[in-house]
C-alpha cells in the first residue's frame, strides 16, 4: 500500500485567501493511500522543504503530493528536494491550486471544493507512479554547422575557439554567404567584404574547423550528442588536395555563363571560383554548362593547362558519413522572386529595374562595373533613381505578411551611396513606413534625408517605359495625391524568404518551420536559438529576416549552446519517455508514423509461446530520440506503448478520481 504525504501550501494569502486550506487538508487525509496530510505557509521556502523532508522520515512516506502553484513553477524545485530524500524525484505530483484555482475563482466554497478535487486527482495519479531514473548518453564532441554564411562562420569560429571540432557544410563552392556580396554595411558604412573575408579566412585556417564546401546534407540519423550525418560532396572535377588555386584553368576556360555571385550582371567562366576572395580558394567546374562534361566532350582546356593535373572529369562526388554531437542550422535566406508576382513592375522585362542585391554588386568596387553606378541597359550613369521598398514584404496579396527588417536601412544606405557617387543625381524612395530599430539606425536615416533623399510615402502601382525613362506611378498618401516619378533606374528592395530547399532540410532534421517556411525556434522569447529537437540549434536568417548584427549575435548564441552541451562528459536525458511492453505489443506499427522524432523502430525478438520459441516483431523506443510527447501511447491499440510519468494507469486514475 502506498504511503502518500499530502502537503498544501498557503502561498501567503495567494491560495489561503480563497481556498480553505484546512478543509483541503482534512479532506486529503481521508483519500485512499494518504498516510499524512498537512499544510504550510510557504512550501517552496527552505523551512517549507525541511518540513516535507522531516515528514517523509517521520511518517515513512513513499510518495508525495504538493498542492501549490503551477507545476511549471516549482515542480523542479520539489524534485530537486526529493533527490536528497529516500523518495525518487518522480514519485511526486503537484496539484495546481493557485494559478488554476485560487487566482481564477472568487467563490470560496466552490474554490475549496475544486482544490479538493484537484488534490484528489493528484493523489490518485501518484498512487500509480513508479520511480524513474534519467538515462545518460555519451556526447560526440564535434559540431556540424549547415550553411557557411556569416551566421555559420561566427558559430563555427566560436565553437572552434572553445576547443571543439566543427565542420561547416556549404552548398556553394565558397563560404561567405550573402554578406560577402554586399558593398557596405549600414549604418557605419564598413566595407562588407573587408570585414567578412578575414572571418572566412580565419574559418578556413582554423585547426578545429573543417570546411566542406560544395557539399549538401543528405540524411541525418541519431539524436542529441550522437547524430550520424551523410554529407554529399558534389562533384568538383578538381582535386582540391592537389590544386594550388593558381587560376590558370579559370583564365583559359572558354565558356562563359552568367555569374550568380554578381546577380547575373556579368559573366563568369565555367571553371570558376564564385569570387576572387573565395574560401576555399580553389575552383570547381560548373558541370551543367561545361562543354567537356555536359556538351560534345571536345574541350578539356583546363586539364591541359593545369600544371598539377588536378582536373578530373570523371569525378562523381562522394558521400561522407560523419558523427556529430550537435547541429547548427544556418542556411540563411533568399530574395523573393519578384518577377512572377509583380507584373506591374515589368515582371523583369525592363533591364533597368533591378533589385537591392544587384545594386550592391553594381556599386561594389569588385563588381561588374568596378563600383561605377551604370544602368544595365545602356551603361549610362543614371541621374534619377527610384527606390521601392516592401516589394513582397508586408503585402499578403502579393508576397509575405512580414517585414523583412533590413530593407529600410539598406535602402537608406543605397540612397546615401547614390547621392555620394552621383552628386547631381536624385533619389526618390517609395515607402510604407520607415523602420529603424537599431543602434545608430535612426541617425543614419536622418542623415540620408539631409543628404537629399526624397521620401515618398506610398506604394508604386505601375512602372512603364517612356523613351529612355521609367515612369513610376504611385500615390503620395501624405499629400493624398497621385505622384509620378521619372527615373533612369529603379531599385526594388525585395523581401527575404527562406532558402528554397529549407523544407527538405527541416524534414531531414525533423525540426519545425512556420507558415512562411522559416525554421521554428523552440520559444520566440526565451529559446531563440534552439529548435524543438534536442541538439539542433539555429542561427541567422533561416529563423526569420534579420540584419547582420542580429545574425552574428545568434551565431555566437548557438555556439554557446553547443559548447555547453559539449562541456558534459555524459548527458542526462529526461526519463519521461515512452516504453514498450513487449508482451503486449502486437507489432501493428501504428505508433511509428505518429512519432515526429523517428524514435520508434521495429525489432525482431525471441518470445516463448506455448512452450515454443517464436520470433516476434515488436516496437522499440530509442531513449535518446524520444522527447516524451506520448503521441504513440495515444495511438497504441493494445496499450503496449506507454509514456512514463503519464501512463495510461495514472491518467485513468486521475479521471476516475474526478468522477467520484
Amino acid at each position, binding site marked *: 500500500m502506498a504511503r502518500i504525504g499530502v502537503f498544501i501550501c498557503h502561498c501567503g494569502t495567494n491560495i489561503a485567501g480563497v481556498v480553505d486550506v484546512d478543509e483541503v487538508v482534512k479532506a486529503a487525509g481521508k483519500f485512499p493511500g494518504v498516510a499524512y496530510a498537512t499544510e504550510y505557509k510557504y512550501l517552496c521556502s527552505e523551512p517549507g522543504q525541511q518540513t516535507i523532508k522531516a515528514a517523509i522520515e517521520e511518517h515513512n512516506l513513499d510518495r508525495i503530493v504538493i498542492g501549490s502553484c*503551477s*507545476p*511549471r*513553477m516549482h515542480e523542479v524545485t520539489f524534485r530537486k528536494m526529493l533527490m536528497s530524500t529516500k523518495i525518487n524525484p518522480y514519485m511526486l505530483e503537484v496539484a*495546481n491550486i*493557485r*494559478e*488554476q484555482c485560487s*487566482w*481564477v*475563482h*472568487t*467563490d470560496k466554497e*466552490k*474554490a475549496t*471544493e*475544486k482544490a479538493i*478535487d*484537484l488534490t484528489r*486527482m493528484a493523489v490518485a495519479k501518484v498512487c500509480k507512479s513508479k520511480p524513474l531514473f534519467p538515462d545518460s548518453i555519451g556526447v560526440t564532441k564535434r559540431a556540424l554547422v549547415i550553411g557557411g554564411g556569416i551566421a555559420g562562420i561566427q558559430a563555427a569560429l566560436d565553437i572552434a575557439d572553445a576547443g571543439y571540432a566543427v565542420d561547416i557544410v556549404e552548398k556553394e563552392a565558397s563560404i561567405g554567404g550573402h554578406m560577402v556580396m554586399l558593398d557596405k554595411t549600414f549604418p557605419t558604412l564598413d566595407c562588407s567584404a573587408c570585414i567578412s573575408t578575414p572571418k572566412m579566412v580565419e574559418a578556413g585556417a582554423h585547426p578545429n574547423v573543417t570546411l566542406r564546401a560544395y557539399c549538401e546534407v543528405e540524411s541525418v540519423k541519431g539524436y542529441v550528442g550522437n547524430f550520424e550525418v551523410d554529407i554529399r560532396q558534389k562533384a568538383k572535377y578538381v582535386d582540391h588536395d592537389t590544386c594550388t588555386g593558381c587560376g590558370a584553368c579559370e583564365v583559359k576556360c572558354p565558356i562563359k555563363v552568367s555569374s550568380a555571385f554578381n546577380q547575373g550582371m556579368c559573366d563568369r567562366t565555367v571553371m570558376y571560383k564564385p569570387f576572387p576572395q573565395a574560401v576555399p580558394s580553389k575552383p570547381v567546374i560548373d558541370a551543367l554548362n561545361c562543354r567537356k562534361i555536359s556538351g560534345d566532350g571536345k574541350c578539356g582546356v583546363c586539364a591541359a593547362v593545369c600544371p598539377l593535373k588536378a582536373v578530373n572529369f570523371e569525378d562523381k562526388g562522394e558521400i561522407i558519413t560523419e558523427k556529430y554531437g550537435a547541429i547548427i542550422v544556418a542556411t540563411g535566406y533568399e530574395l523573393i522572386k519578384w518577377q512572377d508576382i509583380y507584373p506591374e513592375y515589368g515582371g523583369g522585362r525592363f533591364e533597368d529595374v533591378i533589385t537591392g542585391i544587384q545594386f550592391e554588386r553594381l556599386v561594389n568596387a569588385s563588381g561588374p562595373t568596378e563600383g561605377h553606378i551604370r544602368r544595365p541597359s545602356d551603361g549610362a550613369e543614371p541621374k534619377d533613381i527610384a527606390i521601392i521598398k516592401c516589394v513582397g514584404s508586408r503585402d499578403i496579396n502579393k508576397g509575405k505578411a512580414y517585414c523583412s527588417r533590413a530593407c529600410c536601412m539598406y535602402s537608406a544606405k543605397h540612397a546615401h551611396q547614390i547621392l555620394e557617387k552621383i552628386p547631381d543625381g536624385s533619389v526618390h524612395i517609395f515607402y510604407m513606413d520607415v523602420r529603424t530599430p537599431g543602434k545608430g539606425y535612426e541617425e543614419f536615416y536622418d542623415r540620408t534625408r539631409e543628404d537629399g533623399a526624397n521620401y515618398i510615402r506610398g506604394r508604386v502601382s505601375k512602372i512603364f517605359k517612356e523613351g529612355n525613362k521609367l515612369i513610376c506611378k504611385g500615390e503620395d498618401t501624405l499629400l493624398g495625391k497621385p505622384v509620378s516619378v521619372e527615373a533612369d533606374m529603379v531599385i526594388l528592395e525585395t523581401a527575404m524568404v527562406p532558402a528554397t530547399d529549407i523544407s527538405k532540410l527541416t524534414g531531414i532534421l*525533423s*525540426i*519545425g518551420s*512556420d*507558415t512562411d517556411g522559416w525554421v521554428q525556434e523552440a520559444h520566440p522569447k526565451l529559446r531563440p536559438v534552439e529548435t*524543438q529537437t534536442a541538439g539542433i540549434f539555429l542561427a541567422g536568417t533561416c529563423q526569420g529576416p534579420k540584419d547582420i548584427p542580429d545574425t552574428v549575435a545568434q551565431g555566437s548564441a548557438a555556439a554557446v549552446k553547443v559548447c555547453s552541451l559539449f562541456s558534459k562528459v555524459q548527458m542526462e536525458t529526461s526519463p*519521461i519517455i515512452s516504453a514498450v511492453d513487449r508482451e503486449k505489443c502486437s507489432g501493428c506499427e501504428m505508433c511509428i508514423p*505518429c512519432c*515526429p522524432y523517428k524514435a520508434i523502430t521495429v525489432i525482431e525478438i525471441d518470445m516463448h509461446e506455448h512452450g515454443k520459441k517464436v520470433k516476434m516483431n515488436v516496437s522499440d523506443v530509442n531513449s535518446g530520440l524520444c*522527447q*516524451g*510527447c*506520448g*503521441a504513440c*501511447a*495515444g*495511438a*497504441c491499440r493494445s496499450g503496449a506503448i506507454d*509514456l512514463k510519468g*503519464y501512463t*495510461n494507469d495514472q*491518467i*485513468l486514475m*486521475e*479521471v*476516475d478520481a*474526478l*468522477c467520484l
Partner: protein
Amino acid sequence: MSVNIKEGWEPKILAFCCNWCTYTGADLAGLNRMKYPENVRVARVPCSSRVNPQFVIRAFQKGCDGVLVCGCHPGDCHYVTGNYFTRRRFMLMKKLLEYNGIDPNRFQARWISGSEAAKFRDTVTRVSEQIKELGPNVKFREGRWS
C-alpha cells in the same frame, strides 16, 4: 432518459491540457487573475496527442459531464505534429460518442496557445455554459437501469 436537474447543479468538466500551450495559457489566465467557472478541472498531459480516446470514454462512463481536449495551434505543436493526430483522432471520436448515445457536444477540442489566456477563459466559460444547457450526463451504468 429524463433527468431531474437539481437546483444549484454544477457540471463536472475535465480538460486535458497540453503542457506547452494550453496549460501555460491556463496558468497565464491565473497570473492575470481572470475569472472563469469553477467546474473545470485540468489534467496536464505533455501533448494533446497523449490523450488516448479511452480516457475520454472513461470520463463519460464515470459520469463526467463534459470533456475538453486542448493543445497548441495546428502548426505550433511543441512536438511538431502531435496536434494533427489529436485533430484526426477526435474528429472520429465525436462520431463514436454519438453512436454511443452521448451528445457529441459534451466533447470539445480547442487550440489555445500559451499566450492566449483570454481565449482559455472564454473557451472554458463557453464550454461550461454549453454543458450546463445539456444537463447532467447519465453514467453508463445508471442509464442501463433507468
